[in-house]
């Protein structure tokens, strides 16, 4: 086993706070339209074992904006279908000359495995229920466009936290930058164990308590199939935890409403709330590009 190559981004948990700050600063200087061929001639492999719209498109646009050559490998139409292991696929991409691998995988820890055996940087684009570091970074970037700093902010995180890699990355990142968090959801989706993840995290079963006085209200996707599997009723979830205009009013007047997407209108939030003035949901997607440009620049050692 090797130490992951410099420039790898596997988790927020192990990313030092100064590197988080540096990445956010770097992202602010990234202009998707500008001529910044930091990755000219570099080969970026997008290795996606799961379907994805925004993460994949966003990483691809980010890489191309920096002048990189990108290759997309998906489960279907590749040797993965024939039973090739993750490591062997990784070795193949490295042998072809990939300079960076961006990996999306349904198993938690898959990027760690790849990074422990390859000499090139691995970027985690979401692994199982573990982490989604680029999402947490773009969320922090988005928050900082509306708030002076993250230190001292009150953040409500509502929905399916247990199954969410976005939740884990955001909890680590916001805790490192000094925010206080209140998690909310039924015990099956927001288990008490979640408070052990990082300092300054508490939990409530009352959505009103979570939202009251919050600077940021962050919603997470709640899948109907998951509720059914846990023998929870969708209408119960909606009644107790759905974000509505009335509930959102309990937050600070200048609070922002976030959602990593894909948002299920009518489930975790009332249908039109995604388009309300407090909503920064589309802005999050937009900010994904400069943040991922910064992640890629750091990966190839052109972060300065």
């Amino acid at each position, binding site marked *: 086993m090797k130490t992951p190559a410099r420039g790898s981004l596997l988790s927020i*948990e*192990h990313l030092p706070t100064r590197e988080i700050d540096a990445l956010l600063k770097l992202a602010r200087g990234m202009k998707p339209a500008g001529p910044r061929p930091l990755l000219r001639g570099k080969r970026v492999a997008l290795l996606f074992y799961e379907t994805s719209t925004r993460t994949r498109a966003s990483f691809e646009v980010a890489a191309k904006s920096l002048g990189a050559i990108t290759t997309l490998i998906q489960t279907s139409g590749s040797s993965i279908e024939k039973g090739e*292991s*993750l*490591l062997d696929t990784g070795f193949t991409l490295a042998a072809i000359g990939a300079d960076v691998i961006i990996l999306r*995988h349904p*198993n*938690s*820890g*898959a990027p*760690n*495995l790849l990074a422990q*055996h390859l000499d090139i940087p691995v970027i985690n684009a979401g*692994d*199982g*229920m*573990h*982490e989604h570091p680029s999402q947490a970074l773009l969320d922090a970037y988005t928050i900082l466009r509306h708030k002076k700093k993250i230190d001292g902010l009150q953040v409500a995180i509502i929905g399916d936290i*247990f199954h969410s*890699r976005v939740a*884990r990355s955001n909890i680590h990142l916001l805790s490192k930058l000094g925010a206080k968090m209140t998690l909310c959801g039924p015990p099956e989706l927001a*288990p008490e*164990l*979640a408070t*052990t*993840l990082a300092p300054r995290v508490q939990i409530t079963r009352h959505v009103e308590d979570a939202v009251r006085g919050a600077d940021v209200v962050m919603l997470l996707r709640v899948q109907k199939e998951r509720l059914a599997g846990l023998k929870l009723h969708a209408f119960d979830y909606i009644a107790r935890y759905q974000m509505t205009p009335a509930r959102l009013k309990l937050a600070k007047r200048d609070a922002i409403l976030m959602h990593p997407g894909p948002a299920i209108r009518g489930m975790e939030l009332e249908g039109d709330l995604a388009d309300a003035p407090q909503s920064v949901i589309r802005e999050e997607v937009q900010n994904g590009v400069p943040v991922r440009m910064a992640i890629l620049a750091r990966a190839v050692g052109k972060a300065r």
Partner: protein
Amino acid sequence: MAEKSKSNSLLIKGGHIIDPAQKFDAPMDVLLRDGRVAEVAEPGKIRGGADAKFDARGLIVAPGFIDLHVHLREPGQSYKETVETGTAAAAAGGFTSVCCMPNTNPVIDSVEWVTWLLHPDRGAVVNVFPVAAATLASRGATLTDFRALHRAGAVAVTDDGKPVLDDKVMRDALRLSSDLNITIVQHAEDTRATEGCPMHEGPTSFRLGLRGSKASAEADVVDRDVQLAQASGGRLHVAHLSAADSLTAVRRAKRAKARVTCEVTPHHFTLTDADIRDYDTRYKMNPPLRSAADAEALIAGIADGTVDAIATDHAPHAAYEKNQEFDRAPFGITGSETALGLAITKLHKERGIPLSRIVELFTSGAARVFDLHGRGTLAKGAHADVTIFDPKKRWTYEAAKSLSKSHNSPFDGWSFTGKVMATIVSGRIVYEV
């Protein structure tokens, strides 16, 4: 040290004998002759010559260690291990007897396969005692022919790797066990509650985004089995017990004089779920590493006598199998060569558990579980199986140099106190440092 290893008699001189079965803990000499223990006497008191001598000065001379739980992987998975390599590793760990599990391919559920396993062509270096399947193909439905399997040489029955969950099947198995006096070994796990769980539930599983199985998935099955054993008079042995609540159930059963025994592995009393750190599959096994409180409870159970034996659950796997996503990597670690080092370091040196208790767990305690007569003791006439170790010697384990075919050990690079110096099976030295 031995002048000759292939001889009819061997005198082990100058050592300190620990034989818990006879309550010996004193400097004594041992004479082995024709595959049996011929004499044990005070230093220098054994008269007459021997074909060979072993100088055991400064060493502990113990009855041959018995491992109640190993996977030798034959038939069917000889790329992971064979009877030959698995027993060589066992010998290096001081084990003179190993009880091998039937979850092979095909499953050891017939007299033919038990006989095959015991054939000299397998190349066993130490005694092999097969544990046969409790149900056909270990499917949990139809009981195997316990009587015939026992006659063929199987010492117990189990569906290890899988539990017998059906109440009726388990009740029938225990009734039959009572009639035939054969032990039923249970891998206690409610698999309906652990599906898709590669580790124990706790802060680490939440942090890693892995599904965690609860300790109750083990303890609930132990609870049920104990009740069935009490009702039927059957003999139940709980394999690789890992949870504090399971131990409580066994302790209660023993107080009620039920015929219930249990084994604990070195890794479960040494490591916890937190040691998995970032998806290190060398720490993935079943039952999973549990909380620090569970590990503490196991050590307490070892100290107070509730635990009958230390067994390794030696489970070799090829490197490519372990180098997978944590969810996909197979459960299991190798353990034959590190068991004594871990027991002496963790239990004796760090916790003050007497060496004689540790030797008991490896010898007479284990022998009783499967009624291995004439083993686990140095009584006159017993099999000439002897383990000689240096309780103070420090050494470092290198998995790459293991005699096992596989190297999937979390203890690679660990330093231990306590090293096996020689292993003697039927009067022959089969391993020597």
